[in-house]
């Protein structure tokens, strides 16, 4: 791996790094275990109701991260580049969700003055929101590849990366100019009212399992499983895996490489769009910067799970979501430091498993 890096590291430096890495990892790990035991067994800071709440929050946000992370992993697997504009693709999905629900909110049904389309036909509205959101994002992903990445396919590895960052900034600013920089609140249909949910009593305190959260979680699991089946069982999936392994050989075997890459971007865009619509439904607040942080987090999740590996991205997403939400409480530190906890864990994981949780050792070409 070191041979391909443009920065030369002296032999001595490499040895020192090799020696230091596990030591550093072990120190961080020991610290985590120490704090964990303090909070759990000595101080008894939080009761079971708090832990349940934290895990629920983590699973919901984790499932959104997983959906976005899949996009990073798919594209990386096939082109070996990080599509940094992926978060913005998700943002456009969230905006579509906002516009669809806003439109349906303003369509009146029948003579009832308060009954709107989104409340009269909630399932239809939600399905339309998802179809439109996924299509807009899929189209964005497709065009992104055509315009920003395809002309650079033969260029050195860093060039498409810069192009991706440029595309990301372009999309953010375009959204700011087109949709104004104001925060938008997504108007959910009543059956998915934000904040409503099943209440269970734990330790005398009511814990809410929000409908929007359960919906988000189940739908993203469904999408992830169906994607996995597509990749593993269908002809297109086989083509995709072949292109990921070796583009040249795949084209010799009669696979249309360009078409496969375009389709990959379509799929990853559609998944990001679904994540965007879920984000809109669950978190409501949509603006031009919505996609940036989830995009970065999902990228982290993809690396955590082993970039290029589909189940790895799913696992990484859920793992990151839970760590982010449970981590600060478990370590007994300030909640503002949740990102510190998440990235600390990333360091620990990469120290002991440099290719991620489920990552295999990559072929030389992919590194």
């Amino acid at each position: 791996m070191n041979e391909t890096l443009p920065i030369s590291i002296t032999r001595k430096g490499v040895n020192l790094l090799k020696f230091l890495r596990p030591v550093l990892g072990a120190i961080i790990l020991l610290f985590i275990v120490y704090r964990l035991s303090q909070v759990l067994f000595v101080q008894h800071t939080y009761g079971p109701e708090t832990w349940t709440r934290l895990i629920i929050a983590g699973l919901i946000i984790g499932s959104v991260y997983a959906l976005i992370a899949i996009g990073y992993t798919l594209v990386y697997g096939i082109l070996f580049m990080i599509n940094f504009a992926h978060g913005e693709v998700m943002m456009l999905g969230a905006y579509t969700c906002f516009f669809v629900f806003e439109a349906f909110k303003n369509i009146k049904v029948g003579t009832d003055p308060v009954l709107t389309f989104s409340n009269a036909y909630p399932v239809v509205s939600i399905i339309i929101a998802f179809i439109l959101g996924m299509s807009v994002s899929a189209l964005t992903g497709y065009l992104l590849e055509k315009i920003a990445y395809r002309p650079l396919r033969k260029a050195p590895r860093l060039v498409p990366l810069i192009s991706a960052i440029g595309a990301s900034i372009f999309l953010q600013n375009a959204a700011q100019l087109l949709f104004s920089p104001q925060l938008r609140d997504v108007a959910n249909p009543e059956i998915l009212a934000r904040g409503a949910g099943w209440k269970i009593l734990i330790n005398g305190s009511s814990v809410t399992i929000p409908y929007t959260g359960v919906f988000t979680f189940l739908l993203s699991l469904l999408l992830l499983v169906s994607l996995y089946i597509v990749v593993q069982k269908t002809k297109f999936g086989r083509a995709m895996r072949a292109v990921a392994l070796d583009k040249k050989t795949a084209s010799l075997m009669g696979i249309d490489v360009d078409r496969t890459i375009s389709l990959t971007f379509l799929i990853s865009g559609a998944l990001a769009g679904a994540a965007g619509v879920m984000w809109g439904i669950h978190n409501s607040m949509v603006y031009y910067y919505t996609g940036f942080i989830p995009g970065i987090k999902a990228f982290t999740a993809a690396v955590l799970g082993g970039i290029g590996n589909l189940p790895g991205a799913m696992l990484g997403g859920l793992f990151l979501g839970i760590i982010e939400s449970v981590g600060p409480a478990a370590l007994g530190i300030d909640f503002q430091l949740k990102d510190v906890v998440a990235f600390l864990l990333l360091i620990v994981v990469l120290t002991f498993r440099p290719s991620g949780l489920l990552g295999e050792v990559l072929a030389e070409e992919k590194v």
Partner: protein
Amino acid sequence: MKATKFVVALIIMSVLFTACNAAPAAAVPNSTAETTAAPASETTSPSSGAAAGSPDVCSTDAYGCAVFKPGEVVKIGMGAPMTGGDASYGIDISQGGTLAVQDAGEFEGFKFVLVVEDDGGTAEGGAAVANKFASDPAFVAVAGHIYSGATSAAMPIYEKAGIVMLSPSASLPTLTTLGSAVFNRIVFTDARQGPPAADYLFNKLNVRKLAVLHDGSDYGKGLAEAVSAKFVELGGEVVITEAITKGETDYTPVLSAVSSKNPEAVYFGGYTAEGAVVVNQMQQTGLENTIFFGDDGTYGADFLSRTGANGEGAFATIAPIPADSPEKAAFDAAYLEQFGKEAGTLSPYTWNGYDSVAGLIVAIKSVAVVGNDGNLYVPRGALVSAVRSLTDFHGISGTYTCDAVGECNTLPPTFVVVKDGAWVPAP
């Protein structure tokens, strides 16, 4: 060829940059000698310094004079968040200020104008806007900035340029302790907002266990600390203090931790964007019966529309709502007519916005002189001291007298609560 082009481009750019630097330099104290040679072609923006008809005061003034040729307008700046989650504050306050400019009319044939620039409410934005204003010699005063963070970044820049400030809403207590000569404000400070809030929680609402949340900003954190200190002093217990990250949409983890301490009330120091999320998610984290107590940053129509039924019963402390007076009625009517909204629904500061611009114009009128060449001369140093010594100025929100450090308002806050989807004075 390429090298020549590059050199030419370099020369052009360096000339341009020097020209840019020369403009603000004209406002530097005692630079009158150089600036008499200011190019005659400059008609859109006035040049500073002693021209032929310049009055004596300009040569003795610490910052020199801003000169306006007939037909030019006297610019008053305002740096405000006009976009993003807290935009309602900037929009509302600048609309109040706009009305003040309309009411002020002309001075010896010279018009006033309020120029609003978006600083996003951030320190970086505040400094950028301040540099922009300072580089245009037509700016003599700034009604702002709106947020404390932006204000504290902008202060040194205005201090250097001799531009006086009168903020309608920057309430961080330490702003007036920094020794700035140009900074003044007509808002009540967080030092007067925090302790009364703690007192209200303890004595009126009988809260004994308080959770304190803040958004980590200068304003929110300062307020949270002031409330904590006073609440503990009164004999209450602060069960948990947590900071949240600005701009996020999921605060359920931190609220779960708050919930585990069973507080009777949550005090939140911060702004509407995060405050509304906190209120909504308190419903999901076992805090549905806990009182939410906000500050003047969580007041406004945006809070109501974002929280809906969840916001019912939320408290806030705001700048004193002005007592009914003919001036207020006239302002409210003009505001409704021009902007299509009731005054005070977007933010509690629209009257302050009016007052601060009106106060600045009064001060400008008191020091400005028309030279015998027909130009208007505004001595910057004299203007700075005129605002600082503003006495018994009658605004809509009250009567202002600025003290030695620039605090012009000493009224206690008003407490408000959400009832049936509207902000009403709390009992």
